[in-house]
């Protein structure tokens, strides 16, 4: 990429539903737009891999809408730092690269929330969304016995998808109670009518699979890999033999880039106004980083951010009603799937909390806050930089485990000192 190609009016970081919508809206509005993603795929967690297969439904529509514009796409390009105002530092297979922006849209999605329990580090214990993503990349499930234990609407979608991939789904354990679920179900026709048909489809494809609200995994067993999982409900505790335990308790907004740019956050999400602009002028944030709300919310927020970034506030304003509805759905979801006390507190003293540095709960507990624990145990200092254990200690101890030191992802040696303007990648 030459220098002329490294400055854009609008730069969109993250090519999931929110990023695709934002880039399409900005480019359709005549702005010179770049959308980049860390992965080789477009479509984020939900649509990845669809591009090669021709896509279907909304994935196909949105990919086509972006392709009809002259937005530039950069894959395998990870934003790792912001060396100067208006400049991003990204890492790509061709080497480090600097990208100039006038308006920035952050659509970097969310990650799964994992709550540690004895045995959760065994191979075979996988994230619920994580396994969906792996299946899209060809991970084999044919004939595997799977228990799904966690929380959230994704459990249905995941169960249906694993089954379609040939898995024997033994049980879906949802930690929240039936009462809360029922109230959530009753609010769906008003908040998200489309979700009803979707739910019915999942139900049909999960015929015969027990779905147990008020039930959770307390431990996983196995020598070198998972062999079984012990489950609990208000009435009993029992063990299921299985090859895979898919676990996850909803999602946590990715905030490393908003924090890097000094954007205000509150209650674990980025704060934006009704045009998706953050507390930093010229930086817009859309999709999961502003709050978990699924594909629908990500798309409408992405469009609003893209139109707003292009100065088309009136066009963005027309989407306000849709946005409000999506946010009401998010709030209903938060209430319905609030975590019960028992699942926050399943780790035994020996259970590892930090998987990168192998730090057990009993070694963390001596400290009063995240900073002290990090300093003394190296918890959160491994390659994941606290992205996995940080969420767990927030739920366990209420510690604020925000970390925003650049680089926001581990980088190749050289990335942080190499790029002299004009020299990057040129000799590779």
């Amino acid at each position: 990429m030459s220098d002329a190609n490294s400055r854009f009016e609008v730069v969109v970081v993250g090519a999931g539903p929110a990023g695709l919508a934002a880039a399409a809206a900005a480019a359709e509005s005549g702005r010179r737009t770049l959308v980049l993603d860390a992965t080789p795929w477009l479509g984020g967690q939900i649509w990845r891999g669809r591009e090669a297969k021709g896509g279907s439904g909304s994935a196909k529509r949105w990919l086509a809408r972006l392709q009809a514009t002259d937005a530039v796409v950069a894959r395998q390009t990870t934003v790792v730092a912001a060396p100067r105002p208006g400049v991003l530092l990204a890492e790509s297979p061709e080497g480090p690269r600097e990208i100039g922006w006038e308006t920035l849209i952050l659509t970097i999605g969310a990650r799964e929330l994992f709550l540690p329990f004895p045995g959760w580090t065994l191979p075979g214990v996988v994230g619920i969304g994580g396994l969906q993503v792996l299946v899209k990349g060809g991970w084999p499930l044919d004939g595997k016995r799977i228990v799904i234990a966690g929380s959230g609407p994704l459990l249905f979608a995941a169960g249906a998808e694993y089954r379609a991939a040939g898995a024997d789904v033994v049980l879906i354990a949802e930690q929240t109670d039936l009462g809360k679920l029922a109230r959530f179900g009753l609010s769906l026709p008003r908040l998200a009518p489309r979700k009803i048909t979707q739910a019915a489809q999942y139900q049909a494809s999960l015929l015969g699979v027990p779905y147990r609200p008020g039930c959770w995994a307390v431990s996983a067993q196995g020598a070198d890999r998972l062999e079984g999982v012990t489950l609990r409900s208000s009435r009993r505790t029992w063990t299921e033999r299985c090859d895979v335990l898919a676990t996850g308790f909803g999602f946590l907004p990715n905030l490393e880039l908003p924090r890097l740019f000094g954007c205000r956050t509150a209650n674990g999400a980025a704060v934006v106004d009704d045009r998706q602009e953050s507390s930093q002028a010229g930086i817009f944030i859309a999709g999961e980083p502003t709050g978990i709300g699924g594909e629908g919310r990500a798309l409408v927020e992405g469009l609003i951010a893209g139109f707003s970034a292009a100065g088309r506030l009136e066009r963005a304003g027309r989407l306000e009603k849709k946005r409000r509805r999506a946010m009401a759905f998010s709030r209903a979801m938060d209430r319905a799937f609030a975590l019960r006390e028992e699942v926050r507190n399943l780790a035994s003293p020996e259970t590892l909390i930090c998987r990168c540095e192998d730090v057990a709960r009993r070694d963390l507990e001596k400290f009063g806050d995240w900073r002290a624990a990090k300093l003394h145990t190296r918890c959160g200092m491994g390659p994941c930089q606290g992205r996995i254990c940080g969420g767990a200690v927030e739920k366990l101890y209420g510690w604020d485990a925000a970390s925003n030191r650049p680089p926001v992802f581990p980088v190749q040696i050289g990335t942080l000192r190499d790029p002299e303007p004009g020299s990057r990648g040129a000799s590779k």
Partner: protein
Amino acid sequence: MAEIVSLTINGRPVRVPSGTVVAAALALAGESRFRRSVAGHPRGPLCGMGVCFECSVTIDGRPHCRSCQTLCAEGMEVRTDE
């Protein structure tokens, strides 16, 4: 889209459909231990999306590559167990 990619996993030849991620190729080859943790425990993929680093393997001599974020390529050499 039934193109086939040939690679080796711990020296053994493996053939997978193009578009397969390296993590999936490892699972297809029957590997469950992708790496050993600092205390020597076996580990495999958790997040599937590039944040946990539990799926790290050596690809073409480069250690600590996230196998869930890397597509299989012709002639690739993959080693587990760093």
